């Protein structure tokens, strides 16, 4: 276990360094000239050249990359080209909003997904099961911006139950969280359904029945806890899904998180900010995967760590 842990940590660190390299190469290829953007349209060629020198944009690629990587390892992500601020400050200011949204979305998708999965498994091959599974197929086939706009139309514009966008109160978080959780609910309901079906077919369930335990007690005390564990272990993997989702959902709802920060930075080609958000997102994804890897064997000792 110890050796496995160390190896996975090292691998993750290498993956993150690889991601900084790939992103750096991609952004190096961007045809826009950051120096001209900073200087503005009316700047002279000399000014632009000075800015290029200051930013070190005239250095060879690997010199630039090495400089970025070494300062990154010291916690310095550089300065935004277009906003007068450190990238790390910009991200730190936006991160709490995104984390709040993420937690709310996980709660939503688990609440819906697990309930649907449990009901479908208990009503296996009956109309309720078919109906719920069709719902879960629709939810994994719907793009988040469509769900978001429809929810806004029905619940904010027509019914006026929730604000049309923004940030601050509990009411603000509901619609974006449901939008983000909708897709996950579809996946979780299907996984929970087949996990329940697996557990329902196992010997200890038959033993419990033979002992004369009531059906409700068997399901609540024995089946559901066993079926949920392997599902819970997968939450870490979801983080990748969220990191992609927040770019769209935050811009639909005007949610001031790192997704919107990323989207604004991409539109204006603010390279240090794009780099920063990509690295933070990738770190979250890698940590999520690590978490899933470490939690799974704790929950189910049959999963070997090799």
């Amino acid at each position, binding site marked *: 276990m110890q050796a496995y842990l160390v190896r996975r940590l090292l691998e993750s660190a290498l993956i*993150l360094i690889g991601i900084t390299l790939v992103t750096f190469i*991609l952004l190096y290829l961007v045809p826009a000239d950051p120096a001209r953007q900073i200087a503005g349209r009316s700047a002279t060629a000399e000014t632009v050249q000075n800015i290029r020198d200051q930013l070190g944009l005239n250095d060879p690629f690997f010199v630039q990359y090495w400089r970025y990587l070494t300062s990154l390892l010291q916690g310095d992500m550089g300065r935004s080209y277009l906003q007068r601020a450190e990238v790390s400050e910009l991200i730190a200011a936006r991160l709490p909003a995104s984390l709040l949204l993420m937690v709310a979305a996980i709660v939503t998708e688990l609440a819906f997904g697990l309930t649907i999965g449990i009901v479908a498994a208990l009503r296996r091959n009956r109309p309720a099961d078919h109906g719920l599974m069709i719902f879960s*197929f629709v939810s994994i086939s719907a793009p988040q911006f469509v769900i978001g*706009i*429809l929810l806004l*139309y029905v619940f904010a514009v027509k019914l006026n139950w929730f604000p049309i966008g923004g940030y601050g109160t509990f009411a603000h978080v509901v619609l974006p969280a449901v939008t983000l959780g909708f897709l996950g609910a579809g996946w979780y309901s299907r996984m929970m359904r087949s996990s329940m079906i697996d557990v329902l077919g196992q010997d200890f369930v038959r033993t419990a029945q033979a002992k004369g335990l009531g059906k409700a007690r068997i399901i609540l005390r024995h089946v559901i806890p066993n079926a949920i564990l392997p599902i819970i272990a997968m939450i870490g993997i979801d983080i990748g899904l969220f990191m992609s989702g927040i770019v*769209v959902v935050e811009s639909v709802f005007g949610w001031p998180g790192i997704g919107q920060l990323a989207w604004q930075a991409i539109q204006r080609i603010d390279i240090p900010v794009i780099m920063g958000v*990509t690295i933070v997102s*990738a770190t979250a994804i890698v940590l999520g995967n690590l978490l899933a890897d470490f939690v799974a064997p704790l929950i189910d000792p049959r999963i070997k760590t090799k």
Partner: protein
Amino acid sequence: MSVFASSATGEPRRGARTARVIRELLMRPRSAFGLIVIVLMVGAAVFAPWLMPHDPFEQSFDGLSLVGAPLPPGGEFPLGTDLLGRDLASRLILGTRTSLIIGVLANGIAILLGAGVGITAGYFGGWIGAILMRFTDLMMAFPALLLAIVLAAIFQPSLLIVALVIAMVNWVQMARVIYTETRSLAQHDFIQVQRALGAGHLRILFAHLLPHLLSSIVVFGTLGISTTVLLEATLSFLGVGVQPPMPSWGNIIFENQTYFTTAPWLVFFPGAAIVLLALGFNLVGDALRDILDPTLKGRH
């Protein structure tokens, strides 16, 4: 020796096998529905010029109300008009082409790339395999949509570029599945025997490994079209995918989203089209997985 027989006689019966799979798909209500949706959508894309009630690019004068607002569904324009007075039904039908072309093209590239990387890494193993699979791990940790948006924003989006960008993001899943399968197949005796008999790498790859990987490629290829369609819609919605005036379901919503409170049909119809097409491929892909993988029988 039966393995030799099965891989030799498997070839001529492929037609019969395909027919059997299609029959099974039609017998299940969900996948039958999915298949019908796909056939109708492909039909709409192929026969678009004859099906469109209006010119999808014409900003018709009758297409806007007296105050210049888009028209609701009904009458001359069955699904209403957009903010420039263009017929929404015609734009949606032409948009089917965009979605399917990108879906098939991007997914085709992703399959080639993913299967290629997976087979190479799985069959040769060693340092080639290690490098390829570490790179795949790296791509898995990339925030996919962020990568796609950055790529699309770097290059001037055209149909081909959008398809390439999506393929660059989507090949990873296929690579991992194929890698795992190739890895276990390569250990099997029948592959070892071929190698001992002196068969070349290419012959083993194409004549002996590929036929066994076909089921997975078909299943994940079908499911992949759904992912591709959704990703194209999302990129176009953000304005970095298919560029107007060429209609795509995503960019129809992008162009009209400011009107969604007063003209919700401009979001509702294209949104429904996206969900329907993605749903069709998801339903068929899921059923194919059941049909082609006998170990899963009875679990769903």
